[in-house]
């Protein structure tokens, strides 16, 4: 007997898997170093095609006993991950090509991690969430340590690996207890179980599971690996880790809370509240005193992660889907802003040969185009209209006001104070770019920027400006994500 398998439903995954194999084979049999990169980019764009056909079809498809579901939510996020992956490829082409690294393997690992991400947006049970999460992280352990002979890169990889594996173990222990109590790994059944009376052990299980996720999304107090890993890893990999990999963690967290633990609010709301408040506050305060731009962006992304957690933490008191929509919209906009910021860091580092903020002094006079886009990304991260970042903050605060409970309002006040603190360090960099005298020794006339890098920066700037002026575009995506298919 052959079970009926809906191949259309996971066509994006199939296209990407075929691409991974093709890249590996191409790298094995040709000396043309550009070919694997071309196949990789083409494959990522190719897997967007079935995402579009599935979106046009609009039907909710549930496979493997409800473990893998293709619905509007998963399609919106699959699309986001594929675009983010493509932009990461644009950033990597020349960085990896010039560095005398193993190119083929780099793209294979990057695409494998991307495969995990598009699976996680459809995963609807504990086993598939776990497998997808590990498919995301295991290749990134290797990518973080890509510069084999650089001890800093080794250290980045080691710290990321140890924390990543430890967090998986804690998360799995929590999941095993959830399975034992609910007697099922499918989130729908866990939802049913959580609706009834749950023993105290269930709260422990939820706590351990969420702690595991907190490591993955580098929420305070489980963040200490992030700045070190981000600094030591190659910069395109850092961009990938801080956007795609982190978003993968958030998507899994959103899915497991929304579809699994939701009815048992007392077990998950306090944990997420503390994580959100601590991430925003500590992330921003630590970012204030950084002198290295990559470390600053690392702490900034921890703080932004805190902002993403805010609507999740108050979701229990928000009617309808406003809180979930806020999370998705924030993830989409954060992705564009942070990818852009890291693209600008790579572009600037090509000229200054350094990641120190002090070396960026007067960069606006020598390289105005890069500096303008860099400023756009930083101001957007700070949340200044008319750049996209303001809309992300707006939907977050709207969720807080919808909840309208004391704890939610307190969290909203913490978020508001933190938005102000964040403005200081973002604008500090912008001030340096434009108002400081150029530092001695910075090359003024340098070779042209690679096309991929310029395209990535231009694309992200366009997205940020368009969404900032016309936020309905992403707002609509947020609505679509939670429509019944």
């Amino acid at each position, binding site marked *: 007997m052959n079970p009926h398998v809906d191949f259309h439903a996971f066509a994006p995954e199939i296209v990407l898997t075929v691409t991974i194999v093709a890249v590996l084979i191409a790298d094995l049999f040709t000396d043309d170093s550009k070919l694997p990169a071309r196949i990789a980019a083409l494959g990522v764009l190719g897997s967007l095609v079935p995402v579009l056909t599935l979106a046009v079809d609009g039907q909710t498809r549930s496979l493997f006993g409800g473990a893998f579901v293709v619905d509007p939510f998963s399609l919106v996020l699959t699309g986001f991950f594929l675009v983010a992956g493509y932009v990461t490829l644009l950033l990597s082409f020349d960085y990896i090509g010039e560095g005398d690294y193993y190119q083929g393997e780099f793209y294979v690992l990057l695409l494998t991690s991307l495969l995990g991400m598009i699976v996680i947006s459809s995963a609807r049970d*504990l*086993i598939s969430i*776990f*497998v997808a999460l*590990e498919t995301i992280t*295991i290749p990134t*352990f*290797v990518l973080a*340590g890509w510069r*084999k*002979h650089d*001890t*800093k890169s*080794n*250290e*980045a*990889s*080691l*710290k990321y*690996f*140890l924390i990543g*594996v*430890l967090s*998986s*173990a*804690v998360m*799995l*222990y929590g*999941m*095993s*207890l959830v*399975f*034992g109590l609910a*007697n*099922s*790994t499918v989130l729908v059944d866990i939802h049913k179980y959580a609706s009834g009376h749950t023993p105290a052990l269930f709260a422990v299980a939820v706590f351990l599971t969420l702690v595991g996720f907190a490591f993955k999304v580098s929420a305070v107090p489980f963040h200490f690996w992030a*700045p*070190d890993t981000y*600094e*030591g890893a190659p910069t395109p990999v850092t961009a990938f880790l801080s956007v795609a990999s982190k978003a993968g963690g958030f998507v899994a967290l959103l899915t497991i809370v929304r579809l699994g633990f939701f009815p048992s609010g007392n077990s998950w709301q306090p944990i997420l509240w503390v994580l959100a408040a601590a991430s925003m506050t500590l992330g921003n305060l630590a970012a204030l005193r*950084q002198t*290295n731009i990559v*470390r600053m962006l690392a702490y900034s992304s921890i703080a932004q992660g805190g902002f993403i957690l805010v609507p999740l933490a108050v979701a229990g008191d928000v009617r309808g889907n406003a809180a979930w929509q806020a999370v998705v919209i924030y993830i989409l906009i954060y992705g564009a802003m942070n990818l852009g910021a890291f693209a600008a860091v790579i572009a600037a580092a090509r000229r200054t040969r350094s990641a120190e903020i002090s070396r960026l002094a007067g960069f606006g006079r020598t390289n105005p185009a890069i500096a303008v886009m860099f400023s756009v990304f930083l101001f957007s991260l700070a949340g200044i209209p008319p750049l996209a970042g303001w809309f992300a903050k707006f939907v977050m605060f709207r969720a807080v006001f919808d909840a309208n409970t004391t704890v939610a309002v307190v969290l909203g006040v913490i978020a508001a104070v933190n938005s102000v603190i964040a403005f200081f360090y973002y604008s500090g960099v912008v001030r340096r770019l434009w108002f400081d005298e150029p530092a001695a020794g910075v090359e003024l006339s340098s070779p042209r920027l690679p096309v991929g890098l310029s395209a990535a920066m231009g694309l992200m700037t366009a997205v940020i400006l368009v969404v900032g002026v016309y936020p309905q575009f992403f707002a609509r995506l947020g609505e679509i994500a939670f429509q019944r298919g």
Partner: protein
Amino acid sequence: MQLNEFLILAAFLFCTGAYGVLARRNGVLVLMSIELMLNAVNINLVAFSAFTKNVSGQIFALFIITIAAAEVGVGLAIVLLIYRNLHSPDLDEVDQLKG
């Protein structure tokens, strides 16, 4: 045999592993401690699965065993890399990145 006996064994193993990860400085021993934690999870899953006659726990355990092997493969490669560059498996010596 009761379910509790298995759960207590698993909890004990998990704590031993967690202690090992935090206290050991040798990279290989840290990896072994992580394996202990993952195996504690497997004991939990298989025990629940056997007592509730729900086979998905055993499937979960199989996936964990497979992925743990992949993780340790990557982990050993990283520890080996550090041993080559620093000539020591001591993780405390890996401390260039701070702040």
